[in-house]
């Protein structure tokens, strides 16, 4: 009997928590489908009286949301593709190549993890300005060309690959680059997927740096465009919710598809402590 009561409490609390987590997101979707003005009527409506896609249409036709979405997608894909190559190359060197001072250099690199990005942000902006890279894709991408966390994540995984596999190829005369490409990387696929998921989401969700670098209207990313939309259409709640749905949707879908890989990344990152 006591067991039964405990199950009720535990699962009741779990369900209540799930409702708290989901409610803001469900409300967002619901309002995005309401006819204009319905969410700002009193008392506030919970469900659309007549569901409509007009706000989504308006975002794409009048407000050119597709362009901002394309900017976000291109930047996230480029950041991920470049990061995959640079970080996995460095990770391979730290895990599988022998050279003087390797472990000291790696530890030194990890020290960089505690430096808040904001310290580098101001000089980096001035530097990019000198190079004429303000308001360009390249300017936004520059901080994600390589990542200490990415190198760390991939290196830890590569350490678990037995050296004997690589040595066999070395005896056959394969170059290190070839071994990296045709043996190490295929074996490291799971962690590469994890890194790619982190990188894509991080880039897509990033706000402060794109806000600073992309001053021009046409190159803005989705989150920056959404923040501007809030400034111009503060009371068009239904429109703003539709914009929020579109901003969230790609990362939420990506997470649902690759959840296992994403969680592995968090856990791999947390053993550091």
């Amino acid at each position: 009997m006591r067991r039964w009561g405990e199950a009720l409490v535990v699962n009741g609390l779990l369900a209540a928590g799930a409702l708290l987590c989901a409610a803001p997101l469900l409300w967002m979707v619901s309002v995005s489908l309401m006819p204009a003005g319905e969410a700002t009527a009193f008392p506030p409506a919970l469900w659309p009286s007549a569901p409509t896609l007009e706000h989504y249409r308006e975002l794409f036709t009048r407000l050119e949301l597709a362009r901002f979405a394309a900017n976000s997608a291109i930047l996230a894909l480029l950041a991920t593709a470049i990061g995959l190559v640079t970080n996995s190359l460095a990770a391979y060197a730290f895990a599988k190549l022998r050279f003087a001072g390797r472990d000291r250099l790696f530890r030194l690199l990890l020290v960089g993890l505690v430096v808040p990005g904001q310290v580098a942000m101001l000089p980096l902006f001035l530097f990019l300005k000198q190079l004429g890279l303000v308001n360009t894709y390249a300017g936004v991408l520059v901080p994600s060309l390589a990542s200490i966390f990415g190198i760390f994540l991939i290196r830890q995984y590569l350490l678990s690959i037995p050296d004997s596999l690589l040595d066999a190829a070395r005896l056959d005369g394969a170059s290190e680059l070839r071994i990296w490409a045709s043996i190490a990387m295929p074996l490291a696929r799971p962690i590469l997927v994890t890194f790619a998921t982190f990188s894509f989401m991080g880039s897509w969700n990033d706000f402060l740096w794109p806000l600073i670098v992309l001053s021009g209207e046409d190159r803005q990313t989705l989150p920056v465009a959404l923040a501007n939309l809030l400034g111009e259409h503060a009371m068009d709640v239904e429109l703003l919710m539709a914009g929020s749905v579109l901003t969230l949707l790609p990362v939420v879908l990506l997470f649902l598809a690759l959840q296992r890989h994403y969680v592995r990344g968090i856990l791999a990152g947390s053993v550091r402590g």
Partner: protein
Amino acid sequence: MRIHPAAGFLAPALAALLCFFLLPVVAGFALSLTDFDLYALADLRNLRFVGLENYAQLLRDPGFWSAFRNTLGFVAVGGPLSVGASLAAALLLCAKSARAQAFFRTVYFLPVVTTLVAVAVVWRFLYHPRLGLLNHALGTLGVAPIDWLGDPALAMPALIALAVWKNFGFNMVIFVAGLQGIPERLYEAARLDGATRWQQLRFVTLPMLLPTTGFVALMTLIGHFQLFAEPYVMTQGGPGDSTRSLVLLLYEQGFRWWSLGQAAAIAVVLFAIVLGATLLSRVRPARREAHA
């Protein structure tokens, strides 16, 4: 002389980190010692070395102290609340009688992956005094409408609630892994000794989670110091100065008023605080062994 193959592997990443991270960090310190402003932006000959003047100015500026207090408050209240919620959720998920764990874990984690700007837009309306869902729900309980984001005493707590909602799932996943790593025999031994459920939690679970908690708390702290998008989107630092954080102040000084020297000094202060917190967490007292 033969170049070591490792050099080629390291070159792309290290060059990028050197040019776009290490050098800018060093330059950031240098920048904080100058009066870099709009005039210097137009012509570098207007740039002057001012020593620690930017820091002296920060110490005299009530706006800085207010941002400092706000950030500290956000960290000191939001951090523990977030870690506590993570722990509570993890304990519930790992309870023997819990059902549909995979589903609940996914739902709890969902806010973590969402775009902060987008959920801040959503929460701004949830908090709306007349039309927001929150006041509507409270209204059915007989509570008079509250102006969450318009009241200087409530705006920061409102941002903290959003941050807890958004972040607790991340640490929850780490706690779940920690809980699953506790050997079952410890609980068996505790039960043999007649320990109640509460005593098992207090003397087995929590001590075994201590290393995890230390790490989680530090990362949460560092993350919370960087508060920016929530006040930027929801309150613009107001009402008054009540939600202006250090990073928001840095952004405004640097990119609205182009006082980049001042802004760099704020960045260095932020760095010093984060570094201090990291070092402090390393000198925690020797851990007592859990009695198995």
